């Protein structure tokens, strides 16, 4: 109850029990199956998980970019500043997208339209959402490019995407996302396609943005290092569900879910040499043939009969640390 009250006042974004399903020729895929997330104003939420866990679909659902066919949002709520985005008309959603919620994608090489200059593409957002004239929009575009650290912005604004490097393009994407000063920036694997030195640049830039504009960021990534560096809070996803949620420090130092724990241990760390890496056995099941009970039970070393029968709910274990497990760890790697 207390928590509920807190949410109402303090969450910028609250995703409740979101269900997004894809209907493909091969069958029904419950890509997101009851995901609940929260993002507070100015906060960075890291969403981690392996491929196919539904993290990107969650982001696209929030943006209203799930197209039918094949995708369909079948349940839940997406409250943004208290309003349910799922109840919005397409026009209303358009006014929010790119304006109050912006998104950047993984592939800076393909996410920009090759036939328009970057200035056009940034300016377009301003023209549409803010009613700028073309000239004003171009001026503002230069300013935005400068603010994301692109040198010679006046020249760059007239260039086409293919004339830029990947890092530069991702900066352009960020500039475009920031154009309307959004409250929430969804970054879907923003640095995955970039080299590590460029990744460092972009991560610095995002931190800087967060500080300068107070933009809340929902950072989706599979890279635990990136999450650790960027996120205030972390949601760990597995097979369309959030399995663990908590502050970054909690998640990394005291993981409660066997999956999170396994994930952390199986990642080689710079400067820490281990003879042998920890292994999470098996592979992620095909979502069309989901295991019953806890979705992780077939790979979990602690799984019991109960885990195979019944699915645990996301439950608070320690203040604001929640976990979806019958046998959560004690935070030091031991089963409670």
């Amino acid at each position, binding site marked *: 109850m207390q928590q509920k009250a807190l949410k109402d006042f303090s969450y910028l974004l609250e995703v409740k029990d979101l269900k997004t399903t*894809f209907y493909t*020729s091969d069958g029904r895929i419950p890509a997101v199956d009851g995901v609940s997330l929260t993002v507070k104003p100015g906060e960075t939420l890291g969403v981690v998980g392996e*491929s196919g866990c539904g993290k*990107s679909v969650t982001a696209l659902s929030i943006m209203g970019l799930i197209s039918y066919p*094949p995708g369909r949002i079948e349940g839940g709520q997406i409250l943004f500043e208290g309003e349910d985005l799922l109840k919005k008309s397409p026009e209303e959603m358009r006014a929010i997208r790119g304006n109050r919620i912006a998104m950047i994608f993984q592939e800076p090489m393909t996410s920009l339209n090759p036939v328009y200059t970057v200035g056009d593409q940034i300016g377009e957002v301003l023209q549409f959402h803010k009613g700028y004239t073309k000239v004003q929009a171009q001026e503002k575009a230069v300013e935005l490019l400068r603010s994301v650290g692109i040198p010679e912005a006046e020249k760059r604004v007239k260039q086409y995407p293919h004339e830029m490097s990947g890092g530069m393009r991702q900066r352009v994407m960020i500039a475009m996302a920031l154009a309307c000063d959004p409250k929430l920036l969804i970054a879907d694997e923003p640095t995955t*396609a970039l080299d590590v030195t460029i990744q460092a640049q972009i991560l610095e830039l995002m931190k800087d943005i967060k500080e300068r504009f107070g933009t809340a960021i929902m950072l989706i990534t*599979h890279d635990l290092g990136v999450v650790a560096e960027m996120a205030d809070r972390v949601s760990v996803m597995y097979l369309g569900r959030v399995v663990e949620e908590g502050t970054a420090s909690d998640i990394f130092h005291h993981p409660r879910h066997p999956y999170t724990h396994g994930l952390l241990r199986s990642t080689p760390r710079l400067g820490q040499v281990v003879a042998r890496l920890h292994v999470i056995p098996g592979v992620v099941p*095909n*979502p069309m*043939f989901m295991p019953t009970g806890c979705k992780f039970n077939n790979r979990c070393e602690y799984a019991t009969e109960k885990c195979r029968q019944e699915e645990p709910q996301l439950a608070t274990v320690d203040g604001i640390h929640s976990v979806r497990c019958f046998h959560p760890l004690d935070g030091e790697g031991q089963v409670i």
Partner: protein
Amino acid sequence: MAVAEKRTSPNNLDQNFGGEALTLKPESYVRMVWRRFKRHKLAMAGLYFLLAMYLVAILAPYIATQDYRAVDPPNRLKPPSREHWMGTDHIGRDIFSRVVWGSRVSLSVGFVAAGVAVTVGTVIGAVAGYFGGWVDDVLMRFTEIVMSFPTFFLLLTIISIVERSIFNIMLVIGFTSWPGLARIVRGQFLSLREQEFVMAARALGASDARIIFRHILPNAMAPIIVSATLRIGSAILSESSLSFLGLGVPEPFPSWGSILNTGRTYLRYAPWITTFPGIFIFLTVLAFNYVGDGLRDALDPRLKD
């Protein structure tokens, strides 16, 4: 390197949710294509139609009610009746029997012509694409030259100078329609030869022939098959166009095109002569197009994982 995780987009789900695919029952590529193909209802309808046509062609001697060559002038230009299901032509030949036998001629013209085009196109495209360099240059210049001739005139010119037999017609239609495919195949080879599985085969010490036939060609088959399918249809149409100009399959062999051409003069008062072969050409080409379309969908590399 740049690619760490396959991106998730709504259209790319097969890949991302591939997961423990082994829980699915084992499925060969052919079977998968067939499963996909079956979903395309019109393509299936087309396939059934074509199978039926091929059956007719094979069983022509048993299906045809009369000798397709037998002239019966007193019974000329008779409308469809119990005796002549599709009527008779200008010298009293039974249209039904001719259409039945014509399916043999037309389908084999289509098949052989397409076969020739596909063979020539594939060989030239494959050699050019695989070996590259000056071989590619020479072959592609040659392809461009052939391509540059206005196709139908080239066809006409050659047809008008060779002896007009079914065989020659097949060959000429085939030999004038390969360049498009050669380019497609070349493109496939150019991109496939850079694929890692080809590199792996080379690392194992596989010979060029092995790489071409075992590794690249099977993966380049999709556009070849689709193109072959569509080409059969267009070869049938080409033959009928030649027939229109009196350069098609010679009498007394009936091709649908030549029956159609015979009936052209009598279109007004003996429409049955043209109607039936016309419909069969139309339906057959349509069926090939739909099957081609279905195959394209089924073989589409975008959907392939």
